[in-house]
């Protein structure tokens, strides 16, 4: 396998958990709520997915459970922020550590568990295409699900009526109120739905990618997702590009090392954040026009209604 094929394949494989989480964060931020607890939702999803798959013998049941667990953790954030008026950033971090603590506590028994997992399935025909085939069409089912999800979410957010309402709740909720809509239920749905997607990202990490559960196994991927969302302007297709870019950065290190090149892993690990900073600095003003207005209230102690 050439190094290019290997890094691209690894980029899709490793970027998928980030992609799910970043899609979730995009939905949440479109409704005006920043959720720094994304990493916590990923961990909750990773544990619940692996545990339920181990207990029931069905990875898809695990995937469902992982989404629910991620959503439940996001519900805590939604309640704190939307109903109790907590500071979004503070609440997000609290939810992250809650998720980390809870999963470490309850995950102990599943460190040694063996669960049925998602394995790569080559798609007949498509996988025979040179380069494209092995990169995109020899992946696991959760990767294929994410391929469908990206255009679907894009359509939902920018073309559907529900998407307009969701975005309006994050832009100018007053307009929604004037039109007789209730803002809070929409925002609740967006935050919880975002958490469910992050949970699915966690499921991919534990039951498809690594086939194991270990405490704190997301190791910062939830924050990479938040960074992706920032520089991809909360647009699903750009988010996919960003997630795969960072997946490829992660795949580059072992691919080079296995060929005998020494590299600095710590420098590579910093790539997502450096890219984000550069994008924010270079495109700062243009990015800003794309930011939902509701997010500008994040730094007020007041909730965004």
């Amino acid at each position, binding site marked *: 396998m050439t190094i290019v094929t290997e890094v691209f394949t690894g980029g899709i*494989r490793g970027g998928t958990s980030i992609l799910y989480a970043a899609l979730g964060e995009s939905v949440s931020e479109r409704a005006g709520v920043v959720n*720094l607890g994304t990493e916590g939702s990923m961990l909750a999803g990773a544990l619940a997915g692996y545990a339920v798959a181990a207990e029931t013998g069905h990875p898809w049941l695990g995937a469902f459970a992982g989404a629910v667990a991620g959503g439940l953790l996001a519900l805590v954030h939604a309640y704190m922020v939307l109903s109790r008026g907590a500071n979004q950033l503070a609440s997000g971090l609290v939810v992250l550590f809650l998720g980390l603590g809870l999963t*470490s506590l309850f995950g102990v028994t599943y460190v040694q568990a063996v669960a049925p997992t998602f394995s790569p399935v080559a798609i007949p025909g498509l996988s025979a295409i040179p380069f494209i085939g092995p990169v995109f069409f020899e992946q696991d089912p959760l990767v294929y699900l994410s391929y469908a999800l990206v255009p679907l979410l894009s359509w939902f957010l920018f073309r559907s009526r529900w998407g307009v309402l969701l975005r309006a709740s994050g832009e100018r909720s007053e307009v929604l109120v004037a039109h007789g809509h209730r803002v809070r239920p929409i925002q609740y749905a967006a935050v919880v739905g975002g958490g469910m997607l992050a949970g699915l990202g966690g499921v991919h990490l534990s039951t498809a990618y690594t086939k194991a559960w270990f405490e704190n196994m997301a190791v910062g991927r939830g924050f990479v997702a938040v*960074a992706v969302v920032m520089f991809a302007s909360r647009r699903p297709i750009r988010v996919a590009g960003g997630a795969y870019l960072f997946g490829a950065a*992660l795949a580059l290190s*072992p691919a080079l*090392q*296995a060929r*005998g090149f020494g590299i*600095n892993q710590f420098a590579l690990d910093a790539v997502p954040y450096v890219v984000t900073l550069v994008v924010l600095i270079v495109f700062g003003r243009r990015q800003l026009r794309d930011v939902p207005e509701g997010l500008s209230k994040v730094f007020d102690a007041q909730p965004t209604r």
Partner: protein
Amino acid sequence: MRTRWFLPALAVSVALTAAACSGSSDSASEDSAKADNAAEGAASTGSGPGAGSKKVGFIFVGPKDDYGYNQAAYAGSQAVKKAFPDMEVLTAENVPEDDNATRVMEKMIAGGAKIIFATSYGHLDPGLKVAEAHPDVAVVGQGNFISKAVPKNAGTYFGTVYEPVYLAGIAAGKATKTNKLGYVYAFPIPQTIANINAFQLGAASVNPAVQTYVVNTSSWCDPAKQAEAAKSLFAQGVDVITQHQDCTATITKAAEEAGKMVVGYHADASSLAPKGWVAGSEWAWADIYNDIVKTAKEGKFTGSPYNANYRAGCKDGKNPFVQSKFGTMVDAATKKLIEDQKVKICKDGSPFTGEVKFQDGSVMFKAGEVPDYAAIEKANTKFVKGVVGELPKN
């Protein structure tokens, strides 16, 4: 306007740092606070550090169920509990390698413990700090090296991990069909480099064409990076893979799923790879822990072998790092060969018997030289010939 967006970026980086050093929940240390009046029960049988201790404390850097290093250390602590029914064993999991460790150890000492096992590499510095403050308490560190003068009430202990790794390397060298072995490791610490070198030397002793490809992850446990490392190594034609990090399940399962072979480390994980399991190495701490507790309790710690940088190896028959069971693919002839080698290195040989050369061709040990444990620990700073890959750049 723009500054607004630097704030979340800042928050993200702060939060990431926080996440990186999280995972601290020293739950079990609560035990130590229960009975704090037992501290006076000392000095009944002698007066050295740890003499007459009614309690012994263990701190672990990770969870006690990690299928690896910490689980083995925890099992050792439970063996102490069994061997000394009159003693109370205090344990604390997930103790970070910083001032938190000092705090947890101080708490145990306040609760009456006079013998402390600091079981992680990075627990040694906080351990030495505690030892200095409490001359009546014996503090031993697992797997690090006191390079200054050793205090009267402290020491380090460890096994010669590379011995069973060398023997497992022989099994790997026999098993490989592509002559390419893979090694996924966390950090290039001397102990790990010694393992990688011993693995390659063992394999090359039976298969001169064999090479070991190395990939580091820069994390004691990042399963996703491990999964990717395994894929990359398999793509290079590696058909036997092994590792040195705290969580081990991902690599083992990746090998089994890809139809490759795996050599275990830390624990017997043969059940995770029934087809691909070749051999492995695992911890058995009970004897050393019990002996340290006994020595300290009798007031004989100062001047004992444990009041130094103690290294148990197969030469004295006390190596706490032992061979795991063989996989079904290892035939009787190979087992016999490995047994013979074991006898040889334990008697008057060494996995690093010269001539051993570094990657660049310079000599590590001269022909015929049989280095002792200290010399081996000192010399393993670079990879030996046959290892493919560079140490991570700084």
